[in-house]
C-alpha cells in the first residue's frame, strides 16, 4: 500500500464497496489482499501466533467460525474457509465498519436466540443435526416466505455466505482452488489456448 493510505481507509473501502454492489464499486483486489496480509501480521505479532478477534466476543467468533466452516468446508480438492482465514478476514473488516457490526453482531444474537427458542441453548450448544436443520432453514429465501419469522435469519446468513466466499476466494487457498493462473509478468500475452473439441 502506498504511503498516506491508512489501514482504516483500506478496510473501510472494502466494506463500503462490498455493501454498495454497483458496477464501479466492485472491490479493489488489493484491498482484499491487504486484509489477508493484515491478518497475517496480527497473527505474527501475537506471542501465541494466534489471531485475537478485534470485534467479536470469543463466543461470537466461535459461532462465526462454525458458520464459515459450514459454508465452505474442506473437501478432497482443497482446504476450507477456516484454513483460508475467513473468520479473521470478516472480524478485521467488521472491526472498522459499524454497518457490519450491526448486521453480523446482531445476526449472531438472532441465531442464538432462535436456537434457544427452538432447542435448548445457543447455536454452538446444539447437536450437529440440530445445527444442520437450522442452517437448512436460514440458507434459503423460500423458507422465509413460508415462515416470516425466519426472514432476518435468512438475510443474516446470506451476508455471512457472501463474506465467506469473498474471504475464501481471495485467499491463496481459494485462488488455487479455482486454478486461477496470472497476476504475473509475461513478455507477451499468450492468448487463448486451443479450445477443446466439443
Amino acid at each position, binding site marked *: 500500500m502506498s504511503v*498516506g*493510505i491508512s489501514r482504516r*481507509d483500506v478496510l473501510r*473501502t*472494502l466494506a463500503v*464497496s*462490498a455493501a454498495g*454492489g*454497483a*458496477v*464501479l*464499486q*466492485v*472491490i*479493489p*483486489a*488489493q*484491498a*482484499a489482499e491487504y486484509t489477508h496480509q493484515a491478518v497475517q501480521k496480527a497473527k505474527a505479532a501475537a506471542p501465541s501466533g494466534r489471531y485475537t478477534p478485534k470485534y467479536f466476543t470469543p463466543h461470537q467468533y466461535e459461532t462465526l467460525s462454525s458458520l464459515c466452516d*459450514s*459454508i*465452505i*468446508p474442506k*473437501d478432497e*480438492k482443497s482446504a*476450507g474457509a477456516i484454513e483460508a482465514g475467513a473468520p479473521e478476514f470478516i472480524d478485521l473488516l467488521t472491526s472498522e465498519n459499524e454497518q457490519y457490526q450491526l448486521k453480523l453482531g446482531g445476526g449472531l444474537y438472532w441465531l442464538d436466540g432462535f436456537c434457544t427458542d427452538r432447542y435448548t441453548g445457543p447455536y454452538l450448544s446444539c447437536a450437529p443435526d440440530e445445527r444442520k436443520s437450522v*442452517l437448512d432453514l436460514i*440458507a*434459503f*429465501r423460500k423458507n422465509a416466505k413460508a415462515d416470516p419469522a425466519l426472514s432476518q435469519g435468512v438475510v443474516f*446468513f*446470506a451476508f455471512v*455466505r*457472501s463474506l465467506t*466466499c*469473498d474471504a475464501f*476466494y*481471495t485467499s491463496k487457498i*481459494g*485462488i488455487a*482452488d*479455482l*486454478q*486461477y*493462473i*496470472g*497476476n*504475473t*509478468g*509475461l*513478455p*507477451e*500475452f*499468450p*492468448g*487463448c*489456448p486451443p*479450445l*477443446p473439441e*466439443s
Partner: protein
Amino acid sequence: MALRFASSWCWRGRSRPNGAWIIDGEPYTSAPGANFQWFRSRIVGGRTNHWGRIALRFAPIDFTSGTRDGLGDDWPITYQDIAPYYDKVESYIGVFGTKENISSAPDGVFLPPPKPRCTELLVKKACDKLNIICIPARLAVLTRSINGRAPCHYCGQCGRGCITGSNFSSSQVLLPPAMKTGRLTLITGAMARSVVVGKDGKTEGVSYVDKATRTEKRVNARAVVLAASACESARLLLNSRSAVFPDGLANSSGTVGKYLTDSVGSDGWGYVPALEKMPPHNHDGVGGMHMYVPWWKFDRKNDFPRGYHIEIGGGREMPGVGMFDELCHDEEGYGLRLKARARQTYGTTVGFSGRGEMIPNPHTYCEIDPDVVDQWGIPVLRFHFRWSEYELRQAQDMQETFRSIIEAMGGVYQTKTAIDGQYPFGILEGGKIIHEVGTARMGADPKTSVVNGYCQAHDVKNLFVTDGGPLVTNPDKNPTLTIMALSWRASEYLLDEAKKGNI
C-alpha cells in the same frame, strides 16, 4: 442488475484515494429526482490515473451530427481539423488497435493489439453469426516499447497503478518530461477558488486555498487554462463573478454548466457453458478488453438517435471480492455443493458494458447551489439530470443485443432489467460512466457557446478550457483521447497567439 463478476474494466473509478464519489467536506447537491453521481479525482494527473485507457477517435460524422439528425448542434471544427492531433496524441501516448476502415470508428496510429482472450474469441464468433462488428480494442496500453516506456507485462493489475508506466497517465507520461524542462512548477494540495480577473476583463491568475496550511493563496499568470474536469471547471467559472462578469466568467452566453451529458451506460452478463471446458490458463492480458464492438448499426434506421459501443469482459479473471455474489444469490445453500458450483462456474461468465451517446437536453445541467459551500467556503454545484426516451431506447437496444450475443454463444443471459423503476433497461445513474462533458461547449457563435474551436473563451482571450467542457457532443467514444487532441491543438494555438502578442 449489478455486474458481479470481477470485471477488468471495472477498476475505473473504484479505488480510493485516487478519487471518490463522495469526498468528506466537499459535497455537491442534486435537484429533486436528479441523483447525479459525480466522481472527483483529487490527485496529480486527475482522472488519467484511473481511466479505462479506452482511446477511441470521434468519427467525422460525430462533428456534424446536429445537421445529420436535427438534434443538438454541430461542432465549430471538423474531423479534418482534429485528425492531425489525434495522430500526435496516439504517437506520443501509445495506443494499440488495428486498421479496420469502419466509418463510425476511424483508424489511428496503432501499436499491434494483444491476442484475444478465449471469452473474446467466443464473442467474436457469435458476433460474426449476428452480423455485429467485433474488432480488436483500442487502448492506451503499450504492446511495444515507445518513447522510453516499457511495454505492458500483462499482469492485469492496471488498477493498482503501473510500476512501468506502460499504460498512459498524465502523472507518469506527461508530467515527468515537463518537469525535466525545469520550467514547470507543480502546486499540489491546492483547491482553486476562482479565476482572478483584472479591470481590463482579462484573467490575471487563480486564487486557491492551500489545503495543508488552510491559507488563501494566489498564482499569477498571463493565461489561465482550466482542465479541472468539465463540471469542476464550470464551477470555477460560475464562482468567478466580478463586476465585469456578474454571471460568472466567460458566461455571457449563459451556457456555462449547460449541455451537460454523460455516456449512456447499461451492463449485462451471462453464463457460457462452453467456457467450462477450457483448461486453466492465463487470461489476464492488459488491464482492459482486447476486443470490442464499435457502433455497427450506422447504416440503418434505428429507433433511437446516434449509437453505442460494447465493451467485453468476463472469463478467468483474478478472483476478487464480490465475484460469487450472484452465484450465492442464485444457488443459496451452503457447503460442498456451493463450493463445487463456484469451481464449476468460475471463468464461465461473459459480461458486456454498452456505452452510448446522450443527446443534451434542457433538463440536464449544473449550476451553483445558492445555499451550500464546501469546507473551503467555495459554493458547490447543484446537478439537474434527466435521461430522455432517446437514451432509454438505446439502453433497451443494448440489453437486447447483449442477450442475443450470449445466446448465440450457447449461453444463458442472466441480467434482468425492468422497463421502468430506478434503472429502466439497466441504465445507470447520470455521472456513473464518468464521461461528463459539454459544460463549457465550443461554438462559432459567442451567444450560444463558451469557447471557440481552439478552446479559448469567447469573452476572455487569455482563458482556455481543455477538459471535457468544450465537447459539443458526447459520442459513444470515451472522451479522453479527444480531450487530449483538443488540448494539444489549444496549446499550439495559445503559444502561437502569445508569440503574436494577442494574449
